[in-house]
């Protein structure tokens, strides 16, 4: 992903100063935060938006007629309109606020229960995060549908698409896949996957948890039916996420949770549903979270997502090349174009030992199965260490990472 040639180059060092948390030492060393695929840090603009909302505008939304409720409702709906613009949804009504990607994916899987029959199939990939696998396993169990998998080729972490047409022809109703793999860094060809599914009349679900804060997303150009992401992985607060759904599909779907906000009229025996998207937002939503997410989207777009993707993708490729020189290392994911993360195993050093070692040097990494256990079982490794980058990370931090991983290899491998 390259920014336009005439785009101004962001002042990355100055942007780093927008993130107050980064200015600290951990175990006596400057913090090097490389756990961004788990959650990113928040710029002052987002923190201040939360404070401003709670100090001036806090009230419950939609049902109130007083001034603060009006302000809170306006702010909440403005965030929805901003999210629609952020991913090029046709109308704000296609944006459902959720707790995060996981809830968005569960919402679809749950509400599709009445539309899936025994003998139907749900297609996912072997590189799914558990959150884009388990909800479909549950749906399959409720309905008697089968789960099918697009295979991963091997350590290079690519999807084997040679059999995709044949798979989609096997009575598949839903095809769910990750835009960027959280454990391999692979950027999947979402446009091609959606086009292929559409030819078979299959509904597509894009897990954009790892891409929304990095790549520009245009749901209409992609032609996906659903797309889910989390605010906290893109400089926003925890507890808020977005599910995009095509309006016609959302209108036809059953509600998810029942409660206030999602109803039009309630009688003792039955109720009628509010219109989309409120039908899917039972209870008081995370209003402050939506306000914070709004600020995060503004912050990211002021920098430009193509520039962010170019920056953290380059850091990941540099890290991949530097780490490849460490004796006994096994790197996963594509060697070329990749999302902003690198995942690896080290002979003689378990991921948790590597993470503990790095932590004492001030470097925050993640070790374990990264919620993709079936993938690692297939590749024959139980745990990897992952370094994931964002807009505030620097080339010097990549150098430091490579140096410390080299030390860890010597320390444990001897």
């Amino acid at each position, binding site marked *: 992903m390259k920014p336009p040639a005439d785009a101004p180059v962001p002042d990355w060092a100055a942007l780093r100063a927008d993130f107050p948390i980064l200015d600290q030492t951990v175990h006596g060393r400057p913090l090097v935060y490389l756990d961004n695929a788990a959650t990113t840090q928040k710029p002052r603009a987002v923190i201040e938006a939360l404070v401003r909302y709670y100090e001036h505008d806090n009230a419950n939304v939609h049902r109130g007629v007083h001034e603060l409720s009006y302000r809170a409702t306006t702010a909440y709906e403005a965030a929805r309109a901003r999210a629609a613009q952020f991913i090029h949804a046709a109308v704000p009504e296609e944006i459902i606020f959720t707790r995060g990607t996981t809830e968005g994916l569960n919402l679809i899987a749950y509400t599709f229960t009445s539309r899936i029959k025994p003998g139907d199939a749900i297609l996912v990939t072997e590189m799914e995060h558990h959150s884009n696998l388990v909800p479909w396993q549950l749906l399959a169990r409720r309905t008697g549908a089968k789960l099918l998998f697009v295979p991963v080729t091997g350590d290079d972490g690519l999807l084997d698409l040679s059999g995709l047409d044949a798979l989609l022809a096997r009575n598949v109703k839903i095809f769910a896949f990750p835009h960027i793999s959280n454990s391999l860094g692979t950027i999947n060809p979402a446009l091609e996957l959606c086009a292929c599914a559409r030819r078979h009349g299959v509904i597509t679900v894009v897990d954009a948890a790892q891409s929304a804060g990095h790549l520009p997303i245009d749901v209409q150009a992609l032609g996906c039916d659903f797309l889910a992401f989390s605010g906290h992985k893109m400089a926003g607060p925890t507890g808020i996420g977005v599910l995009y759904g095509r309006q016609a599909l959302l209108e036809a779907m059953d509600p998810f949770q029942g409660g206030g906000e999602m109803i039009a009229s309630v009688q003792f025996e039955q109720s009628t549903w509010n219109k989309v998207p409120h039908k899917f937002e039972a209870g008081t939503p995370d209003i402050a979270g939506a306000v914070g997410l709004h600020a995060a989207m503004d912050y990211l777009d002021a920098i430009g997502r193509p520039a962010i993707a170019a920056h953290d993708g380059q850091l990941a490729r540099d890290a991949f090349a530097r780490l490849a020189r460490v004796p006994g290392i096994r790197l996963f994911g594509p060697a070329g174009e990749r999302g902003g993360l690198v995942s690896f195993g080290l002979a003689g050093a378990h991921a948790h030992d590597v993470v503990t070692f790095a932590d004492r040097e001030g470097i925050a990494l993640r070790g374990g*199965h990264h919620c993709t256990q079936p993938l690692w079982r297939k590749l024959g490794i*139980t745990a990897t260490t992952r370094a994931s980058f964002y807009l505030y990370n620097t080339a010097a931090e990549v150098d430091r990472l490579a140096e410390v991983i080299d030390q860890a290899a010597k*320390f444990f491998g001897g």
Partner: protein
Amino acid sequence: MDLTELYQSVILENNRRPRNFRKLPTANRIAAGNNPVCGDEITVYVQIEGDRIADISFQGAGCAISQASASVMTQRLKGRTLEEAEALFARFKEIVTQGKPDEEDLDLSAFAGVHQFPARIKCATLGWHAAINALHGESVTATTE
């Protein structure tokens, strides 16, 4: 603290060359353990004769703490009675949770640094939990959760 306080040479050495790391064909008790948080897996094989552990071995994959702990454990449990094994585990738990080394037991005391890393206590006790389950003849999978 210095990292070498956690990763004492006993731990690094037992991780590099785990003792009794094999299947035990003569085992009459087998128990598995796993840590769902990190995916560590371990299987402990025990051959019991009367009330004594005639032989014990393990296999598995996990961090240095879990592998070294299981390796040291097999060396310490061989020839012990069930009662002695439980007393030893109780002492080991004290060492890893309170950081109090036992002057008379340098191998177990090597794990005293673990108490400063609360998330890793489960790693240190995984093999022990599986072994105690095996000794009780419970064919359940020990889990740290």
